[in-house]
């Protein structure tokens, strides 16, 4: 069993290695966008070992998938204004790619395109068509739709200290699903509107009132938002494609200094292409205290030791390395509901190992060790191991209870009495009148 599982792990590792080292990327680039204007972004990707293939949205080759098997590890869709695609790019096929572990980087725009409806499937609520994000703050010489956005440093996806980034495009409101990973939020002063003069201010009030379409405003809106699926593939929706451009990467901020666009899009690409915050469970094992092999079944009240081995992907060396950085991992021992939930802490001195010891509950049944660690931005860690927990066997109960002494005495007494009677009856002599001959005869 152990041999088989270790062989499986090795096999998995091997496949993942090849997955990481190939890293082919298909870039669907709209012909209206000049590839030269995105040279910093694309060049950066190539420098980090990604193999880029370009194609226009209406080209039929190279195909994204062949017979349902994805041809690329990652797909970049930089065609925010394109309304019609070749047959192999539809919202459904893109969702299919995600379930086949292909990652997507998608640029949106204020225009209504097939990708707009795809974004809605990922719980992003887009404003009405043709309403770009505008902001009057800060006062600047650029148009109202070209906005410097402060980058929050709280997201684990981004390196800290990225200067504000230039943004042009559409915002989106975020649905309630926790699988969304907000990467860049809109400035508090910004809002989505199609107006060009101060006289339209009443329209904004009407929009927010009952019966209106609603107002997309404030920092609760997202501009760049990721989504991590249940199979740990990742998709990022960016509200505009221009933030990836060389033009914005070199455009000076109103406050002076270079913008953070180049750094920001590098971090976003690293996350969406699984080079960052990628974790996995190498294996779990469990056994009784003092033993080393997993038993077939546990008895109620057994002391159980549960161990998990976790590693993180290191994109620089393309290897998996033991990872002890999780301090809020929890283990549940469940039968329908968790009976025990305890924190699974890293073992010091043993990288990547998390261990806990606990006493099995005094309820018998089919239990599961459940590891379910989900944090925004990180790969989900899920593991479930089923073990039966049985009551003690008839001969595993304590045998010499003081409370049962009278019963022991009774049983032994009866038993000894029977033996004594049998021996006496057989060995004794019949006294007195011994009949001569018997009646039967």
């Amino acid at each position, binding site marked *: 069993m152990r041999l088989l599982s270790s062989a499986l792990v090795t096999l998995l590792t091997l496949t993942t290695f090849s997955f990481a080292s190939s890293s082919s990327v298909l870039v669907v680039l709209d012909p209206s966008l000049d590839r030269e204007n995105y040279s910093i972004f694309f060049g950066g990707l190539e420098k980090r070992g990604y193999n880029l293939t370009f194609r226009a949205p209406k080209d039929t080759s190279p195909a994204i998938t062949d017979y349902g098997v994805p041809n690329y590890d990652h797909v970049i869709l930089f065609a925010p204004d394109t309304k019609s695609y070749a047959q192999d790019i539809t919202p459904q096929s893109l969702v299919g790619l995600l379930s086949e572990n292909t990652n997507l980087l998608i640029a949106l725009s204020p225009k209504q395109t097939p990708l707009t409806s795809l974004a809605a499937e990922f719980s992003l609520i887009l404003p009405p068509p043709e309403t770009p994000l505008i902001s*009057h*703050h*800060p*006062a*600047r010489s650029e148009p*109202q739709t070209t906005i410097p956005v402060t980058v929050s440093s709280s997201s684990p996806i981004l390196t800290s200290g990225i200067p504000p980034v230039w943004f042009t495009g559409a915002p989106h409101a975020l649905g*309630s699903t*926790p*699988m969304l990973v907000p990467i860049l939020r809109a400035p*508090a*002063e910004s*809002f989505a509107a199609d*107006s*060009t*003069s*101060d*006289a339209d*201010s009443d329209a*904004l*009030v009407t929009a*927010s009132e009952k019966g209106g379409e609603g*107002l997309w*405003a*404030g920092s*609760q809106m997202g501009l760049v938002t990721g989504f991590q699926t249940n199979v740990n593939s990742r998709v990022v929706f960016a509200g505009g494609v221009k933030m990836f451009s060389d033009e914005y990467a070199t455009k000076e901020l*109103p*406050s002076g200094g270079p913008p953070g666009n180049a750094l920001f899009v590098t971090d976003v690409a690293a996350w969406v292409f699984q080079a960052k915050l990628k974790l996995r469970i190498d294996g779990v094992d469990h056994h009784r205290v003092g033993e080393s092999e997993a038993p077939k079944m546990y008895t109620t009240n057994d002391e159980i030791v549960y161990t998990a081995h976790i590693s993180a992907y290191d994109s620089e060396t393309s290897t998996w390395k033991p990872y002890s950085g999780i301090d*809020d991992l*929890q283990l*549940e021992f469940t039968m329908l509901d*968790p*009976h*025990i*939930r*305890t*924190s699974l802490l890293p073992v010091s001195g043993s990288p990547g190992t998390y261990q806990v010891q606990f006493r099995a*509950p*005094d309820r018998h049944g089919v239990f599961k060790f459940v590891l379910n660690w*989900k944090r925004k931005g990180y790969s989900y860690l899920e593991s479930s191991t089923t073990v039966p927990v049985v009551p003690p066997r008839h001969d595993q109960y304590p*045998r010499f*209870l*003081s*409370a*049962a*002494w*009278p019963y022991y*005495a009774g049983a*032994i*007494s009866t*038993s000894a009495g029977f*033996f004594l009677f*049998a*021996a*006496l009856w*057989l*060995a*004794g*002599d*019949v006294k007195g009148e011994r009949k001569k*001959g018997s009646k039967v005869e």
Partner: protein
Amino acid sequence: MVWQFSWLLLAATVQAASLSLQSPRFTISTPDATQLRSDTLSLTEKPEPLTLGPTDTLKLTFQITESDEGKGVQPHQTFLRFYDKASGEEGIQPVRVTPGGKAKFELNMVRPPASIPPTTHNPLEVSLILGSFVHAPAQYDLFELYLPASRTPEHPDEASFHVLPAIKHTFRPEQKSPPQFVSAVFAATVLSPWLVLIGLWSKIGVKVPNLFSLSIIPFTALLGAFEVLLVWYWVDLKLGQVLLYGGILAIPTVFAGKQALYATGEWRAGRK
């Protein structure tokens, strides 16, 4: 901060006329129109935090003017921002401004607008954001506002993205045994008939002339072996072993028993 400040400086230079706020005033009243608090707002110093009960109404009035001429204007963006610093939740409420620059906002807690963010016991920071295509933008921190806490439904999966409370299993208490002395007394009671038996026997005397007879002793010994087997079962053996050993033991016992009974029968009938 410095960065924002420099933007403001830039704002002053880029556009000549900037927007300013005139005579901002707030009133808090109860449903029966009793005024709880009413004051003008100072733009340089924040007032004491405002507190609204679940049925109170907050009224806010102000005028937006061009800072140069004092003429009322209608800017493009007149947004009230409600921001919860602790949770990061934010709500944006546009305010309707007349062409003369006058604005009135009413917050009735019986029917709060959808733009009010989910509230906790923390205060909301209320600020006014002004933006225009022709004027330099402006932003004013008005006051802090305490609202009754609200409840918002959570996504069912949201919980699994956070640390969950630890669960400890409550074990059944250990079984209690009565004091060993009591058990010993009762065990002695159970064994006491032996005293009577032995006492009576000692009076009448027991004769076992045939105990070591070759016809009897094998059966007695085998019977004793059965007793030993049962004690062994209690102490150590498993049921299968007991049945096996018992089965093996049974075969000689049957013959020995038959022999013993036959011999006794002979004696009793007086044939021997």
